[in-house]
């Protein structure tokens, strides 16, 4: 069998239903093979779009996302998407075409050393030089991408390898002697953690993206209710507990709520699950939760002790460890602490000045009108407002580029999420600047009838950078005015064959959102919001979480 056909058959055996990509000379055999397979191929308009779409598909569904690109520029265009997936531990497998093995190293036409380029941003990658390795490699790639701490895997396919004739024998098992993720958690450490929980007077759970990845939300909520402990999340952990749950304090960090940041700062025990204590989450590390002992549960041993000192390390899968931990803890009332947190919560709600046309208002209304929608975000103020004001109800509902902060991620990720869940409403909460970074994918939405709704919070600025310039650079607005008030997103949408709307007043927001929700086609709504709006509260760079400031 032609190796390209074997590859496609292997993808089918891995349960792949859809691939995002763009063909080219070096990968043309694989495209020839997929032509009459049962796998749907969605041609994006840029390979970055393809990788983000595969990533969005993976994050929304929990299944492995797959992207194809040709050699050279096709391959290099995938790098931002791969890195985005890497930073947020998202399982994708990317196949790139490569020049024939005989020409590798000769600077042949469209040759790029993509395995070299992506080495630091993939969980693992392969250059297949012997066609006999094809099937074994595919098997390994899917296994590595989706197990342990998930991540992107890239397979580079020289053209001659894809035309070779091979036996189709798909391996049942992988043999990777150096790869054995620890799942169970050490029983002694779990007991030790339980002891600390029982001793604690001000316990907090800090839930990261790992809880969502390991499908451990149920176990998380059960543990929180048993102790009981308030749950703060990281940005990536948003959705790990329903945000209307009485124990949920929302997300902490640079733009988290005051009460969540205060609660974490004053707690005496932090049970951190599947998070990596990034600087955006912890604020000034030296002043992070000074009184707290820390239990850190993570599947990646390298995350434990990397940024914060840890009292009880537990290497294992969040779902398994949380379930076990729950068995060792009993309910204990901690009235003073509960009252204190409730008081903070009452005193310092997330708020904004409602005068004029505020971006936060659009998000609040979207949350009200489409409470079950899958929400992706771009990066910048739009992302932080979405995190603050769109209260999500279930895991995988909120999809954002947390680690890399990739502008242009949200829209193609929404495409991927919509492909995974055709029946759901999927919205991209976008900034004007970010939307431009992958706006070409509107053509993809139209062509494949993918009814993503893009809510552009059009403030005419690279708003988050503008905010920093206002606060920390004496209002010297260097290069941040992008003047999108002159850009007609409505007309652009129409030009692509999508539906466009322009909304200039808060009183029109509800109607627009309701209408968009009912339309079974891609929609772009250009919300002409006030450009002066800033994201608050804010932990200034270098400050501790409890030094969080409000808008004057």
């Amino acid at each position: 069998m032609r190796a390209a056909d074997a590859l496609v058959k292997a993808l089918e055996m891995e349960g792949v239903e859809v691939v995002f990509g763009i063909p080219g000379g070096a990968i043309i055999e694989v495209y020839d093979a997929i032509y009459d397979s049962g796998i749907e191929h969605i041609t994006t308009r840029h390979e970055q779009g393809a990788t983000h779409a595969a990533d969005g598909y993976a994050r929304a569904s929990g299944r492995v996302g797959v992207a194809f690109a040709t050699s050279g520029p096709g391959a290099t265009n995938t790098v931002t998407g791969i890195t985005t997936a890497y930073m947020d531990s998202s399982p994708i497998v990317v196949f790139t075409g490569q020049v024939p093995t005989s020409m590798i190293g000769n600077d042949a036409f469209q040759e790029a050393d993509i395995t070299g380029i992506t080495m630091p941003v993939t969980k693992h990658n392969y250059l297949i030089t012997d066609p006999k390795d094809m099937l074994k490699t595919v098997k390994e790639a899917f296994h590595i991408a989706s197990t342990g701490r998930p991540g992107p895997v890239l397979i580079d396919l020289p053209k001659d390898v894809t035309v070779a004739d091979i036996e189709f024998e798909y391996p049942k098992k992988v043999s990777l002697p150096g790869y054995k993720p620890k799942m169970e958690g050490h029983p002694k450490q779990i007991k030790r953690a339980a002891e600390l929980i029982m001793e604690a007077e001000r316990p907090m759970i800090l839930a990261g993206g790992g809880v969502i990845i390991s499908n451990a939300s149920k176990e998380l909520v059960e543990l929180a209710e048993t102790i009981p402990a308030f749950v703060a999340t990281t940005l990536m952990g948003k959705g790990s507990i329903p945000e209307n749950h009485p124990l949920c304090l929302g997300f902490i960090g640079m733009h988290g709520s005051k009460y969540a940041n205060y609660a974490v700062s004053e707690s005496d025990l932090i049970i951190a699950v599947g998070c990596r204590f990034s600087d955006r989450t912890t604020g000034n590390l030296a002043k992070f939760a000074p009184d707290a002992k820390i239990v850190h549960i993570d599947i990646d041993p390298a995350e434990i002790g990397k940024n914060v000192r840890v009292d009880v390390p537990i290497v294992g899968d969040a779902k398994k460890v949380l379930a076990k931990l729950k068995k060792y803890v009993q309910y204990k009332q901690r009235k003073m602490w509960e009252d204190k947190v409730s008081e903070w919560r009452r005193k310092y709600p997330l708020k904004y000045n409602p005068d004029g046309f505020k971006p936060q208002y659009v998000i609040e209304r979207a949350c009200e009108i489409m409470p079950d929608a899958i929400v992706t975000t771009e990066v910048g103020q739009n992302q932080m407002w979405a995190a603050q004001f769109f209260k999500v109800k279930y895991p995988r509902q909120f999809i954002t580029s947390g680690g890399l902060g990739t502008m242009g991620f949200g829209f193609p990720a929404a495409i991927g999420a919509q492909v995974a869940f055709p029946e759901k409403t999927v919205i991209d909460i976008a900034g004007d600047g970010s939307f431009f970074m992958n706006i070409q994918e509107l053509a993809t939405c139209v062509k494949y009838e993918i009814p993503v709704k893009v809510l552009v919070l059009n403030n005419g600025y690279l708003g988050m950078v503008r905010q920093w310039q206002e606060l920390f650079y004496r209002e010297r607005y260097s290069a941040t005015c992008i003047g999108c008030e002159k850009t007609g997103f409505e007309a652009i949408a129409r030009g692509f064959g999508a539906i466009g709307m322009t909304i200039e007043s808060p009183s029109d927001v509800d109607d627009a959102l309701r209408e968009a929700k009912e339309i079974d086609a891609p929609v772009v709504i250009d919300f002409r919001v006030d450009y002066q709006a800033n994201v608050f509260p804010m932990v200034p760079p270098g400050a501790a979480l409890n030094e969080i400031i409000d808008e004057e």
Partner: protein
Amino acid sequence: MRHTIAVLVENKPGVLARVASLFRRRGFNIESLTVGTTEREDLSRMTIVVEGDEKVVEQVTKQLNKLIETIKVSEISEGSVERELCLIRVHAPPEKRGEIVELTNIFRARIVDVSRDSFIIEVTGDEDKVNAFIDLMRQYGIKELARTGKVAMVRGNKK
């Protein structure tokens, strides 16, 4: 502090690049790195000397362990068997040859090449010994020097 780390990896193309890439990306400093075959033909062993505190070594070890092709990472504690080989081309005029030969013998080193005005001397041993010998040779004029970097092994159980 310097630490010696032994890494058992699958003997596959690209593994060395992965290890080097990891050190560069994480900002770890390699003092020396040796790679070679082992008792098993499908495995290679790297001996890496890194500079850093305990925290750095812990991260290095954990990150190395994360590489798919890494089978085992172990820190080689002090008191283990550590060896390095060094070739030195030293200036050896007739009137100095006696002295140099004598020093070479004291260090159980070997003269492996003799030419009109120089020797090539091979010295093996732990780092201190090699350093001491190099220091002694400086007075005669070292023309060329090549060190292999260290290989190391934990001692067997004495009981």
